[in-house]
């Protein structure tokens, strides 16, 4: 049977130090810079509202912004989701590069695929904007 809940993970090695990447990933107000299809976002305390290029408004609850672990977690609270948790981890590989892991868990499972696909594209953009600034 098809599971109600879906889990998707994307990861990408980026040729920049972990602190440089965390400065972007760990700042909830900078999402539109690196997540394709995000037109804008506003942050108020632990609440963030993301507006997509399609005009959809997605309210989120910020759960973890841990600069020591370089871990960022949030939950989309829009009615479309019965459950959601996204986690972005920035791992220092010790050679001036980093591994960024973006995990999406969601119910309905379809939304895990959709968000996971967008998250993978976001990692590619993060790499492009940090490895090739000005592109």
């Amino acid at each position, binding site marked *: *049977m*098809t*599971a*109600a809940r*879906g*889990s998707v993970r*994307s990861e990408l090695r980026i040729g920049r130090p972990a602190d440089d990447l965390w400065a972007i990933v760990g700042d909830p107000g900078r999402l539109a810079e690196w*997540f*394709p*299809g*995000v037109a804008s976002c506003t942050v108020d305390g632990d609440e963030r509202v993301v507006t*997509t*290029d*399609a005009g*959809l408004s*997605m309210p989120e609850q910020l759960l973890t912004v841990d600069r020591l672990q370089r871990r960022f977690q949030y939950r989309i609270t829009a009615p479309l989701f019965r459950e959601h948790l996204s986690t972005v981890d920035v791992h220092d590989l010790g050679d001036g590069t980093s591994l960024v892991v973006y995990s999406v868990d969601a119910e*309905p*499972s*379809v*939304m895990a*695929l*959709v968000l*996971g*696909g*967008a998250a*993978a*594209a976001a990692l590619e953009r993060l790499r492009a904007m940090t490895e090739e600034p000005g592109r």
Partner: protein
Amino acid sequence: MTGRRRNILFVTTDQQRYDTLGCNGGALARTPVVDALAAAGVRYERAHPQSVVCMPSRSTILTGQHPSTHGVWMNGVALPEDAPSVAGVLHDAGYRTALVGKAHFEPYFDPFLRFPENALGQAGTTAPAGTHRGFEHLEFATHGPAGTLHYTRWLAAAHPEAMGAYYRVLDDALQVSAAGGGDTGAPQVGVNPIDRGWYHTDWVADRTIAWLDGLDAGDDWFCWMSFPDPHHPWDPPQSEMHRVDWREVPLPAGYPADAADRERILDAKPRHWRLWYDGALVSNYEAPARWVPATLTADQVREVNARNAVECELVDEALGRVLARIEERGWGPDTDVVFSTDHGELQGDFGLLFKGPYHVDALMRLPLVWRPAPSAGAAPAVVRRPVGLVDLAPTFCTIAGIDPPGWMQGRPLPADEDDAVARRFEQVLTEWDSALFGTDVHLRTITRGGWVCTAYRPGAVHDGTEGELYDLGEDPLQQANLWDDPARRGLRDDLLAALRDAAPPTRAPRLPLEAPV
């Protein structure tokens, strides 16, 4: 020839079986327009897709490459924007190019509007860069008023009262809905009160005509007119349902009416067939996740087939309107018409509906008709040798007088059986790869010499030793799997060797799955 280049009207439907056309022996739908094209042109009796789902198959049509090579291995995997395109080749050669109707080279599920097909629905009918995939004009539709596509926006603006008329394709969990409708409660069947003129089939024809009307008489053009029907949901305008009374529809030859027969046939196939039938395994997003095929009734099969036939008739009539306009513009003698689809539909065969990892004629044997421009003076013909949708792109190049580029893996379609024999059209390949939340299925199929042979690679429910082998001559319904028949072992090994030898190059790294569809 009249001195100008030949125009190309390329017509596709979605998920249409070979036997739904009158020229192919179908007796349910009246399809006089396509039948006339077939009588005047070339009718292919064994045209196969290289994938039995939309996005990989459509990408093959556009690129002239097998799925392994273009990389779109399943619905939800986007064809890269810089992928080669026959429309680009024709545009670069001076052709005016358009795609009207269903594209689906990019996922539909797109809340971030990341994919140009979805973004274009809001932006207009011309890509910001001038062309998208070689098309200078793009107007999109799908199986109802979904997403941000042009048809959705047109219906919402012009006839908002009809927005809710269509069957609701997805359920609350965003899965393909199993909700039943009509008289029999069959899944993906709905009563649609929409005015026929507002239905997407007529819209696609209307917009095609509008684009043609905007061309100069001397323009050379390539138009892909892509009807979303007869893909489910089966909800044609209710005003047209009088055409076929489902109660009088005979059961398809491929539907074993007795449950014990169905189950015996399924049990002789690799185990995912029976697992799906029993509702124990859904390996992909191509059928309702909450529907159990074993519950399908004979009357439901009749009603689905009746509604499908009505949709095929509407497509045929819409095509007739476009062809009439082409004649009025004076292009008739110099216009090639190619009619096909992206893949088939189980439509009751084996007690199943929809599609999936099942490489049998229901999904693989497709309608394909090529009516060359009358000015070319080609004789009508029937081709029985196997051809593939991968052969369409090089065919379009040849029609336009262009040498097919080296990246195309197919060959120009044979003009008749002698041509097919002379150019050794002997086999065609079809592949399936799905991976959804830990369940993966992988098939590689060769159709050659009157046999269909499918090898299974290791996956969630297969260990890599399974397979299917059917004698198309003796077993046209593919009900007797001869894979383990010792008497066929040599033949099976030969077919597997041919399959290995013909394997197309594989794109690496694998493209990501970005949405369910």
